[in-house]
């Protein structure tokens, strides 16, 4: 007797077995276990990691890292917005100046820029307004100022391109609708264009903020007391190199994780009205 269509249509469905996936998962788990084991039996004194995790020098370094990342990012975003608007200007002088800025500061490595700013006194021994006042450049160009300028200015070059892409992503009709309401150029940018451009701008800027947190470690070479510099100072004294590098890595992980969470919140805020069929508030 042959089965009928009705009988076959009522048989139990059995999902396919993914043997390949199981093998791959087993291999990866074995590799992870081997790495974990290596670190456990390796020559790391984990007690030192715990001991130095919250010492004052490391805490000061952590604060300095966060302060530098935030300030350099603020400088970068301000410069980025200004140069992006200049780049899109009809005025060829403004447009090409912005292009030159972006070209120059994107091309020169950040570490090299830090060294240039830090050694500015070699070019200009004093700075100020001629006849009014003048100060020795070495007094102004502290490690903090040199790091802030170096990191902020190169960040501005990258952010300018991000902001430009954001501005160009806004539909032409939005500009026309804003103009039709009688908005001036500045008000149109602030009220209508930028809030929409932010949706495109925030994800890459968030990534760059995370990049900036790590980039501040470059400032250790010009003696700025950020977290890596602090860790190095300690291990120069006690020779616990790996333990202190792990301490620094731990704090970078914490800061970057916190930033990722904040980025998610901001993205959600600027996606207002974007997702169809989402919450209508």
């Amino acid at each position: 007797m042959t089965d009928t269509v009705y009988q076959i249509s009522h048989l139990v469905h059995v999902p396919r077995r993914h043997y390949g996936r199981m093998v791959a998962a087993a291999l990866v788990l074995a590799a992870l276990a081997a790495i974990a084991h290596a670190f456990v039996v390796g020559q790391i004194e984990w007690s030192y990691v715990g001991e130095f995790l919250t010492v004052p020098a490391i805490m000061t370094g952590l604060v300095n890292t966060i302060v530098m990342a935030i300030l350099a990012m603020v400088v970068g975003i301000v410069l980025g917005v200004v140069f992006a608007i200049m780049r899109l200007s009809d005025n060829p002088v403004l447009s090409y100046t912005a292009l030159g800025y972006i070209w120059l500061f994107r091309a020169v490595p950040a570490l090299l820029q830090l060294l240039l700013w830090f050694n500015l006194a070699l070019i200009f021994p004093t700075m100020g307004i001629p006849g009014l006042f003048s100060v020795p450049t070495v007094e102004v160009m502290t490690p903090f100022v040199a790091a802030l300028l170096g990191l902020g200015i190169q960040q501005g070059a990258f952010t300018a391109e991000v902001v430009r892409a954001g501005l160009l992503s806004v539909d032409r009709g939005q500009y026309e609708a804003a103009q039709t309401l009688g908005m001036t150029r500045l008000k149109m940018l602030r009220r209508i264009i930028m809030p929409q451009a932010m949706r495109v701008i925030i994800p890459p800027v968030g990534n760059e903020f995370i990049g900036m947190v790590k980039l501040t470690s470059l400032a250790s070479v010009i003696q700025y007391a950020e977290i890596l510099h602090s860790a190095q100072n300690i291990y120069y004294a006690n020779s616990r190199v790996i333990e202190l590098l792990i301490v620094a890595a731990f704090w970078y992980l914490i800061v970057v994780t916190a930033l990722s969470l904040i980025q998610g919140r901001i993205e959600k805020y600027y996606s207002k009205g974007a997702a169809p069929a989402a919450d209508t508030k």
Partner: protein
Amino acid sequence: MDIRTTAAADDQNLSPAAPLVVAADVRKRFGDNEVLKGIDIAVPKGEVVCIIGPSGSGKSTFLRCINQLERIDGGAIWVAGELVGYRRDGNFLHELTDAEIARQRRRIGMVFQRFNLFPHLTAIENIIEGPVQVLGEKPAEARERAEALLARVGLADKRDAYPAHLSGGQQQRVAIARALAMRPELLLFDEPTSALDPELVGEVLGVMRDLAGSGMTMIVVTHELGFAREVGNRVAFMDQGQLVEIGDARKVLTDPQQARTRAFISAVHK
């Protein structure tokens, strides 16, 4: 009426008795392509003029010249007696600054084919944006007027919806309310129903019909010949950058005098 003889009040503005919109010999070119070849038209206050014509005839471009989304290359336009976009100095017309042009645009509302609502603002926020940010109205007062305008276009229940959650017809009605919130003396419509699904055209035309009934001066670029006949006081036919024919709406649409107008109307009705 020959608009060329309309008297000027001073060396650049027209007397209050002049029509609300006066355009004289308006010319516009994009590169080598002359898209407006000298347009003359006068629109009295309270009149509804529908501009029809094939695509590429320059009708949208002319509309955009009136509120200076396009800069004209020749001729002059007056709205409410005021020379638009330029200041006369002897034998020259000097272009105005951005701020002066922005001020002139306040009195001219515009409704676009693609609605162009601000997607990051809710329906009611779209409507109060202009009054609060440009006219300096108090938010509470603007909000109250916006509620009334939403009710007028039949969308009182959609006040807190974002544009992405509205149908095309609803978006266009919010866009009309947004334009009305500026208390315009003149409304420009640039193919307001061309981007709509057929079943949504009626609700937008209904709102426009009400507006026309309330005495609003309107210039409407449209393909809806039925609407033009029913609501338009006059119909203007444009072709290849020229105003070929203008006259009483029913007369132009049923008994056009020019061969080009006849050809267009019979082609549309096919």
